[in-house]
């Protein structure tokens, strides 16, 4: 009997039909969209949900006592419950809507940070963080006199766990770490990190921007204290994201911004703040975005995050094999636990020249430092080219990427 190659059944052609952008032609070639770590494309269901809100449900929430406002409020709060289920939070009140992961981290830095972090305290991050998980802590350090400590990574792009354990001291007041690295694709052992930090009573924030689109996130299982994610990286709208925070922390934290919705009562002498999560949602929120995010979660859940992970793993393995066969190509980020990302350099050829030639073949990749300049420095490269995969990508698209890279070599031979 012929030995069958093990492949996962995944109806990718059917899935692709849900995404209008994937039918585009670029420079006369079919679009091969491989920049999913920057942002994902949107399925029609999400586009329709946003459009339906504006054309049939639009009203402000939590104020009107009329039909339309009740409808909008319901839709908004239903979406909150969808997020709760998606990441398995204990309570919907632990879901705070923010603009994105960046704002989620800034919220913790300013609210938690200014309440609980003092001069001489330490905040622990890793060498693979995105700028959005570095700069908010530097700002906080500047405000409070706290110090930023950085856990090194090895040549594969994996966290050096022993160094992490050594860097946890009595001074450490918060650990903030990426679940999946945007520049390297490394999946960090978040559960072990949380265990080690909690053993010293140190809370942990997880930057989940690159994880939520690719793996099943369970904040109770991870046992993390905060988890931030972005809607637009998981087939949802831009400008909307989530900060999960454990109830006991959120309740003890001061507000992040002041304004409408986040108060119970206001006089010029004294203001009483609203309950969580509203305490952290000042002003009219991005209602359409929240509803769109809810539709994105429905869409992903319908396919199933486990199925997505399995299929993407297969793509990643295939892509790794194909790229390793290209002369002079060096993968940056070869962690044993990886998701979605193929970052590479090609001989002496600059990433932007690669990007330009690929673009003329319809292939969209990212070229540059990926908002992770310290990672580039760690690997001694000014920039990398990065192909990042989503569940709507195909092996054929990876083949087109490889053919285009051969063309790059041809030009620069």
């Amino acid at each position, binding site marked *: 009997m012929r030995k069958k190659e093990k492949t996962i059944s995944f109806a990718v052609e059917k899935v692709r039909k849900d995404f209008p952008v994937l039918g585009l032609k670029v420079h006369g070639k079919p679009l091969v969209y491989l920049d999913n770590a920057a942002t994902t494309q949107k399925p029609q269901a999400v586009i329709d949900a946003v459009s339906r809100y504006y054309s049939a449900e639009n009203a402000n929430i939590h104020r009107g006592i009329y039909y339309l406002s009740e409808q909008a409020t319901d839709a908004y709060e239903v979406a909150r419950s969808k997020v709760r289920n998606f990441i398995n939070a204990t309570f919907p009140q632990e879901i705070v809507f923010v603009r994105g992961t960046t704002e989620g981290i800034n919220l913790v830095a300013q609210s938690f940070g200014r309440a609980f972090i003092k001069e001489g305290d330490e905040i622990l991050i890793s060498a693979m963080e995105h700028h959005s998980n570095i700069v908010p802590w530097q700002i906080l350090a500047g405000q409070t006199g706290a110090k930023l400590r950085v856990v090194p990574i090895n040549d594969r792009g994996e966290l050096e766990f022993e160094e992490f354990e050594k860097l946890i001291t009595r001074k450490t007041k918060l650990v903030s770490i990426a679940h999946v690295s945007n520049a390297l694709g490394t999946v960090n052992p978040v559960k072990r990190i949380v265990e080690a930090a909690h053993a010293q009573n140190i809370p942990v924030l997880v930057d989940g921007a690159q994880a939520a689109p690719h793996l099943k996130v369970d904040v109770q299982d991870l046992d993390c204290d905060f988890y931030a994610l972005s809607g637009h990286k998981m087939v949802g709208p831009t400008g909307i994201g989530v900060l999960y925070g454990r109830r006991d922390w959120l309740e003890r934290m001061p507000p992040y911004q002041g304004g409408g919705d986040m108060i119970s009562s206001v006089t010029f002498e004294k203001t009483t703040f609203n309950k969580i999560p509203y305490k952290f949602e000042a002003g009219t929120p991005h209602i359409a975005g929240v509803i769109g995010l809810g539709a994105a979660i429905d869409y992903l859940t319908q396919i199933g995050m486990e199925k997505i992970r399995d299929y993407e793993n297969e793509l990643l393995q295939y892509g790794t094999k194909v790229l390793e066969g290209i002369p002079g190509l060096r993968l940056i980020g070869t962690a044993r636990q990886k998701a979605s990302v193929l970052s590479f350099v090609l001989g002496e*050829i600059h*990433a932007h*020249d690669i990007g*330009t*030639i690929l673009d003329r073949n319809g292939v969209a990749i990212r070229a540059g*430092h990926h908002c992770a300049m310290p990672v580039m420095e760690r690997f001694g490269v000014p*920039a990398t080219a990065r192909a990042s995969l989503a569940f709507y990508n195909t092996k054929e698209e990876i083949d087109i990427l490889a053919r285009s890279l051969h063309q790059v070599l041809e*030009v620069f031979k």
Partner: protein
Amino acid sequence: MSSDLRELYQEVILDHSKNPRNFRVLKEANHKAEGYNPLCGDRLTVYIQMEGEVIKDIGFQGSGCAISKASTSLMTAQVKGKTQREAEELFGHFHQMLAGEKGKTFDKAKLGKLTVLSGVSDFPVRVKCATLPWHTLRAGLEGSAQPVSTESFSTEWTAG
């Protein structure tokens, strides 16, 4: 391969990017400036030796994409021996060739070998790579201490 790609990465450009001319630190330099496009990672330092009004010698160091490297190399070869004003004028024509307003012309004869970079105009996102050395040269001649960038969206305020 598409013809505009072939135009962009033609022999002369690839040659200048692989074997850049005047790629050296100039000990006699009395002007110096840095150009840096952080998003790209293009980084270069231009060294200029002025003698009166004349650019007596020029050199550069740095790393970057083929376009920025070739453009810097070609620029140094072209401005050597020219006065500051002549170099400025050349930049004007060069800029017009790459990103100029429709209908306005540029002097092909004056640009000479620099016209090999005209293909960059079909790649708007790469214009900044080709103009970085020129902005850096200008900063050097004007004695600016700040590194120059051509990738910021708001370097200049334009009305209307």
